[in-house]
């Protein structure tokens, strides 16, 4: 290990930029969360109210619903993306003609801006214009109207996210799969283990750190999904797809309820960090065991 002063110098610019763009705003939000501050109230100045905002949050049905929806959404997309991503990663590692082309096509959705993803799916689902409602109606007799049926809206948002983000999962898992050690696999085959057992006991076991890392990345991003949902459903019907990022935005911006919105932000951030921390501990623990 080398002289740590040089190390600090190398990492300093990164820490400095993140301090300005991440930590300073965080402190601001922290302070504001202890105030009642709505610039369109009779008294537009901030008033210190201690922990009132936080107390109110515990009973705020809209907030709790939004948190619950976000968690539900995250669970759905995480599990689907892991399963589908793992399957596709294995399929992509096979030798087929046009492999490069397939890989490129599969990765394409990842490159599309979330806001454009939302727009694309809106074009697919707008009644009267989009093909999905048309064919569901004429083939299956299903009335598919996102803005009227909460379950359809939620399912569509989940499917959209799967379409958009599975490629990232596929790619990271491919990186993991292609680095798997060969010997244990060969050994197991010689021992006559079934393909299924090999996959379950060996491949997955070796893949665990990669899986956890992938979950971590997707968890961080899924919890802060805003753009595409805003574009597709606007959080509707009602508040059935109003995930926490969108909910906070509505409270802080159109409603200008700064104090309350800040408290809400802090709680959300806290929950996110706790979840990620648990995963992180699991991840680093695993690394050390290996080392």
């Amino acid at each position, binding site marked *: 290990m080398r002289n*740590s002063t*040089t*190390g600090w110098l*190398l*990492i300093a*610019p*990164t*820490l400095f*930029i*993140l301090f*300005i*763009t*991440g930590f300073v*705003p965080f402190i601001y939000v922290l302070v504001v969360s202890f105030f009642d501050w709505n610039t369109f109230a009779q008294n537009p100045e901030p008033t210190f109210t201690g922990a009132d905002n936080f107390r109110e949050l515990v009973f705020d049905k809209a907030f709790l619903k939004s948190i619950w929806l976000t968690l539900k959404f995250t669970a759905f997309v995480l599990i689907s993306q892991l399963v589908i991503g793992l399957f596709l990663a294995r*399929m992509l590692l*096979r030798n*087929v003609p046009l492999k*490069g*082309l*397939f890989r*490129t096509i599969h990765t*394409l959705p990842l490159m*599309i*801006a979330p*806001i*454009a993803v939302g*727009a*694309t799916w809106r*074009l697919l689902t707008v009644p009267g*214009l989009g*093909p999905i409602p048309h064919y569901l109606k004429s083939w299956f007799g299903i009335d598919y109207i996102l803005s009227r049926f909460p379950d359809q809206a939620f399912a569509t948002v989940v499917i959209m996210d799967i*379409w958009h983000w599975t490629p990232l999962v596929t*790619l*990271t898992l*491919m990186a*993991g799969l292609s*680095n798997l050690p060969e010997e244990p696999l060969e050994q197991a*085959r010689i021992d006559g283990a079934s393909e299924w057992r090999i996959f379950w006991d060996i491949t997955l076991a070796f893949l665990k*750190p*990669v899986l956890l*890392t992938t979950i971590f990345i997707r968890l*961080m991003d899924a919890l*802060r999904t*805003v*753009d595409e949902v805003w*574009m597709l459903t606007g959080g509707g019907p009602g508040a059935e797809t109003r995930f926490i*990022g*969108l909910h*906070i*935005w509505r409270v802080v*911006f159109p409603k200008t309820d700064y104090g309350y*919105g800040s408290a809400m*932000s802090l709680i*959300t*951030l806290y929950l*996110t*960090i706790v979840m990620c921390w648990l995963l*992180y501990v699991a*991840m*680093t623990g695993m690394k050390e065991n290996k080392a």
Partner: protein
Amino acid sequence: MKRGLFQSTAVTLIFWLCMSALTLLPVWWMFLVSVKSRADLFGKPSFLVDTAKMTWANYAEVLSNPSFQKYMINSLIIATSNAVLVSVLALLAAYAMSRFRLVGRDNIFFWVLTNRMAPPAVFLLPLFLMFTAVKIGDWSLFDSRIGLILLYCVFNLPFAFWLLQGIVDAIPKELDEAAYVDGASTFTVLRTVIFPLARPGLAVTGILTWVFAWNEYLFASTLTSVEARTITTGLAEFVTVTGTNWGQLAAVAMLTLAPAALVLALVQRHIVAGLTFGAVKG
């Protein structure tokens, strides 16, 4: 090795053909909408191009719009500068983390990651106030490209840092130790040993951060107004325009997608190699 029917090349090929069609369907539909005139939009949907009625008017209109051109250039400058800045800073930081004894190493690492965790709406208000407060003469951080280039570090740096740390960790320490023994400075080691070896990883980092920056919407829409607006904010402007202009919206979306798709096609081979996040030790 025995191969079942399911594992045969033909089945795999068919599978991927279907899968690709499924993946491309939404994009294809967007393209179809973008070549339809406003009056033809509604009606029975068809997945075929109606060559008789096909029109490039939406593209012509969008491309000849000066603000669209400006948005596109802004997006290019902002995404590219941010990707370069982030890759360089993250490489330095990752090297520091990997090779130096830093107090509270794991905590620093996790703190860096937390910056990507916050829902973006959380920071909008303080950032807006900060951006409007920073002024040098007539120049203001608000509505400036520099502002966005710096700000995008908040979600891109943690990502790049993590990705590159795995890459740098995988470079054998003996290589740079040998260089130090020969009397090289830290900078020389970075330039001649680490940089060439981390190049595939850097490429992936650069591309993904570029895409994230290119795609960002919420910050850009709040922290810019005229000069530094990006293409994604331009896209959103078409949504609530009178009688939502679906055709032009689709045309802009296609144009937003094009550069990213191009970059992807060029580098897709390298992406997998770089995406290990340190979870795989080679």
